[in-house]
């Protein structure tokens, strides 16, 4: 089915978008939320389950202290109020991804409330209000069999792996974010990006989006400009890349505008995002699904974080990304705009790590924003997804600085690194990329260039030193770019003018 879409810029002349995000983060604890089962990603199916996470009668859950602590630290980093007393609740529903018949979650007593996160888009700061941060458990993974591969539609049965069921999951919910206008898609992406940075800085999750450690549900609605009421929203589920967050919001804005323009109503519903087409399609309808009959979990006692403990956790928070950006900007002597480029390119952490690995800030920036950004863009990937480490980039800059390779050879070395041929030095060795010294080969290439262009030689010796460039070019060509241009120039000067 193809949705009718309105041109994005045109939508904004008539409608005001309202967005909101619910983000789920799998914590990086060693064991599950309520039992001691391991949380190793990629383990053999159903090898990390027990009577507690499978919901066997008589089993008793006990909360994981590290997960509670991580959730409080997330709340503190987002400027939230930390509850002095709260409970877990049962969210009742029947779906085979939950073996217990309910998900242990939190309802009206979340651990953290009323925080905020500031994000910047094109030099403008948007304050995202955080409504709540609560702790729950992840669900199992369904594999639909029959019909189109992996799709529920037309499947004749499903197979389930409960390894993921019971892994601590933190849900971070924003309040509706108004007045973002045409920036709505970018604000949504910037929020998830910044949140991810914070979670990384806290070290509470690996936040690997491709492994589903961080998934965002994106709420979008439109209202006619000047309208006092907000429109009906849709919730696009489990958008699991930063690019997709932006694309999902943009798509929903364009689709909803077409529906409203046709005089129809937006249905409040869950929608699914499709990475391949960048489109959304309707999922289960909401009316009955929300009847979860929450009630306090009788098998878990309330959590009452000791204020002294909370204070200690607050004092122990690491430097947060916003503060770090200010510090690095000053240390590296960058302008606000230069810093914004780095951040928007998702390169800040990579550059910082590359500098930490020994590169100069300017070299590190040059590689990540130049050659690497181009390659990521060509591959439709984020920079972080490129198969090259900051350490390898630092090594590349060192090889250039030492004169082992020139820029062109360094790019070839990078080809090898990205192709999985090893570290830069190994690739340089294996591919024979090192810059030629004043070897016999280079001397004979210089000889050949001089012999091959007597007219140029005459010009040079007649005082037109710029003409030397043509000879340098000939030598570089002869050596297939492996010579060092400065060395070649010096050798030519010695021979012709010395």
């Amino acid at each position, binding site marked *: 089915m193809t949705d009718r879409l309105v041109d994005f810029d045109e939508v904004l002349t008539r409608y005001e978008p309202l967005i909101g995000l619910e983000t789920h983060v799998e914590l990086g604890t060693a064991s599950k939320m309520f039992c001691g089962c391991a949380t190793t990603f990629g383990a053999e199916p159903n*090898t990390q389950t*027990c009577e507690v996470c499978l919901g066997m009668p008589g089993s008793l859950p*006990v909360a994981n202290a*590290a997960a509670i602590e991580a959730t409080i630290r997330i709340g503190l980093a987002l400027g939230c109020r930390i509850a002095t007393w709260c409970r877990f609740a049962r969210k009742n529903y*029947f779906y085979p991804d939950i073996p217990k018949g309910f998900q242990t979650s939190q309802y009206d007593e979340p651990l953290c409330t009323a925080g905020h996160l500031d994000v910047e888009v094109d030099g403008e700061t948007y304050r995202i209000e955080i409504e709540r941060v609560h702790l729950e458990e992840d669900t199992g993974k369904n594999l639909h069999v029959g019909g189109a591969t992996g799709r529920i539609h037309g499947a004749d049965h499903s*197979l389930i792996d409960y390894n993921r069921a019971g892994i601590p999951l933190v849900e971070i919910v924003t309040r509706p974010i108004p007045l973002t206008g045409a920036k709505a898609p970018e604000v949504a992406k910037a929020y998830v990006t910044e949140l991810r940075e914070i979670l990384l800085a806290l070290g509470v999750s690996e936040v690997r989006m491709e492994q589903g450690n961080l998934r965002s549900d994106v709420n979008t609605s439109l209202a006619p400009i000047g309208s006092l009421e907000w429109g009906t929203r849709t919730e696009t589920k489990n958008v699991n890349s930063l690019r997709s967050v932006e694309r999902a919001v943009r798509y929903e804005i364009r689709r909803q505008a077409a529906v409203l323009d046709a005089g129809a109503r937006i249905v409040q519903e869950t929608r699914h995002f499709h990475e391949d087409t960048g489109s959304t399609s309707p999922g289960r309808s909401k009316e009955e699904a929300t009847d979860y009959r929450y009630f306090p979990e009788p098998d878990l006692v309330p*959590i009452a974080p000791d204020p002294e403990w909370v204070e200690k956790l607050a004092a122990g928070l690491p430097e947060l990304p916003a503060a770090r950006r200010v510090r690095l900007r000053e240390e590296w002597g960058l302008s606000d705009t230069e810093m914004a480029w780095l951040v928007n390119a998702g390169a800040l952490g990579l550059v910082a790590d590359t500098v930490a690995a020994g590169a100069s800030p300017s070299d590190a920036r040059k590689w990540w924003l130049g050659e690497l950004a181009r390659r990521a863009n060509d591959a439709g990937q984020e920079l972080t997804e490129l198969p090259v480490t900051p350490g390898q980039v630092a090594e590349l800059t060192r090889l250039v600085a030492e004169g082992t390779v020139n820029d062109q050879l360094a790019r070839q070395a990078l080809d090898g690194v990205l192709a999985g041929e090893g570290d830069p030095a190994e690739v340089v060795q294996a591919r024979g990329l090192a810059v030629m010294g004043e070897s016999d080969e280079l001397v004979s290439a210089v000889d050949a260039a001089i012999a091959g262009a007597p007219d140029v030689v005459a010009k040079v010796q007649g005082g037109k030193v710029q003409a030397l460039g043509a000879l340098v070019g000939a030598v570089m060509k002869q050596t297939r770019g492996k010579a060092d241009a400065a060395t070649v120039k010096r050798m030519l000067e010695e021979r012709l003018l010395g």
Partner: protein
Amino acid sequence: MSTPAPTDRLSRQEVAHLARLARLAVTDEELDLFAGQLDVILRAVARVREVTGEDVPPTTHAVPMTNVMRPDVVRPSLPRDVVLSQAPAAEGDRFRVPRILGEEA
């Protein structure tokens, strides 16, 4: 999480709705029967309200305990064959369930 005030009788529609949420097939006669029975239970429980005062907070636990937690330490899981043997159906390494309707995943 307050329970609804049991001033009105539990309706057939409410019982039908609850039955649907609980995936129970209930006949028309049973709806009447259960509505009556559940109503009696709700009213009996509601009598507790008559003896509670403003100074008694609602509670969900009989023991006044908080912060029962375990350290983040991995313990052995159950062997997979044992786990899968508890399921009504399994296939290969996974639990097998009938096809899931109503959602496009």
